[in-house]
């Protein structure tokens, strides 16, 4: 069994940080290797002094954790969480974790055809397998309100994490990650259409053109009085059997 993957994403500074002259506090990463294909989206909590350090470090910590974790076949998913937590703290040290608090969302397509997906904090983690409707692993605020979130650095322990391993599938699988600047303004009833749009509009573009187009779309965000930094990352996986895409 082999698989082909496509990953892309973009991040822009929101109107509030533009107005304040503050750097984009979101960070995202895509990576491929023997560990599989990975996308990460992190949103440094805006009220924290080292939010940018926190979000960028979290992206790198996730990549490092995935490399190490996948070297041990069958290692439980919670080991990956522990690795991310520790590696993130090492990367931000001596900064105090609450000062660099950040959300952390990831999707890792394993070479086995499985996918590890989820994270800590608000935003969107959406999955679609084959023709099934999109399901959200993170995206429902439940009983909380805007800007209330768990995060690395302020929410210790496994309870704050929602990370799951999806079994092998012969069908195409799509993972979409987004920071809350995107997720909170999405119409939940249009999530399938949103995922379709991301694939159909961007899949065939040249990577550079794709990035420019996605940045332009994020900069033209249509919701009135939107404020936040905005980040989207997409990972599409096609399982191939006997050379045929399924």
């Amino acid at each position, binding site marked *: 069994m082999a698989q082909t993957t496509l990953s892309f994403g973009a991040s822009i500074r929101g109107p509030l940080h533009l107005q304040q002259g503050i750097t984009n506090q979101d960070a995202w990463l895509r990576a491929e290797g023997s560990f599989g294909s990975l996308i990460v989206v992190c949103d440094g909590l805006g009220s924290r002094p080292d939010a940018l350090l926190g979000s960028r470090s979290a992206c790198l910590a996730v990549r490092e954790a995935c490399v190490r974790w996948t070297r041990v076949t069958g290692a439980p998913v919670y080991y990956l969480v522990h690795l991310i937590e520790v590696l993130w703290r090492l990367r931000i040290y001596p900064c105090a974790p609450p000062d660099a608090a950040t959300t952390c969302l990831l999707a890792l397509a394993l070479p086995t055809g499985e996918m590890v997906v989820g994270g800590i904090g608000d935003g969107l983690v959406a999955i679609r397998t084959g023709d099934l409707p999109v399901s959200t692993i993170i995206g*429902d*605020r439940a009983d909380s309100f805007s*800007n209330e979130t768990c995060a690395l650095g302020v929410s210790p322990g496994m309870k704050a994490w929602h990370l799951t391993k999806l079994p092998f599938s012969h069908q195409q699988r799509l993972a979409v990650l987004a920071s809350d600047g995107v997720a909170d*303004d999405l119409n939940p009833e249009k999530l399938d259409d949103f995922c379709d*749009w991301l694939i159909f509009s961007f899949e065939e573009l040249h990577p550079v053109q794709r990035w420019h187009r996605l940045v332009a*779309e994020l900069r*033209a965000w*249509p919701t*009135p009085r939107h404020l936040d930094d905005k980040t989207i990352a997409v990972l599409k996986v096609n399982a191939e059997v006997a050379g045929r895409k399924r």
Partner: protein
Amino acid sequence: MSKLSDFTVSSPRPLPVILLADVSGSMAENGKIDTLNAAVSEMIATFVEEEATRAEIQVAIITFGGSAARVHTPLKPASEVKWENMAASGRTPMGSAFTTVQQIIEDRQLIPGRAYRPTIVLISDGIPTDDWKTPLELLLGSERASKAMRFAMGIGEEADLVTLKTFLADPASKVFHAHEAREIKKFFRWLSMSVTSRSRSANPNNAVVVEPTDLDDFDF
């Protein structure tokens, strides 16, 4: 227009403000209800005029008088509120108002997760005449409603400040005590400033404290 508009909501993030207004018979005395009507109307007008907001201020008014609370003004953007004066009569079913506001806050169609933390303002000049303790316990124990910012104003010497303080459920919070009807307007000036300050702030979930000394001889 970006195709994204097909998948996104077209309204700003809501910032709900819910008033629980005592309209029992005693509010008809000494011009209290007239002053309250004028103050609430002025507050709504202030919200409508506020242009530099990062959120859409929404208003709901629950009145409690007679036998049960009722929704006088359903939750909607301040700009869409057609103000109608409240009339005072009957008893003080404050517990019923607590139940009604809890239902509103727990309705995620009405107040979605993208909304900023709601503000609940309790205004009363008397002692509750129904069972208020159980509904208040449920309100304060509710995962969503307990996150709301709460303010309270007692009007006149008969106001049950202990009950109002229990509603705040925070030792550091103070009940605003309006000894005279004219002080009702000052409270609403303060409230208007607090809400509009929140709506302009980087994170409207952080309460912006407007110093009471900014208002002429404001007293609480």
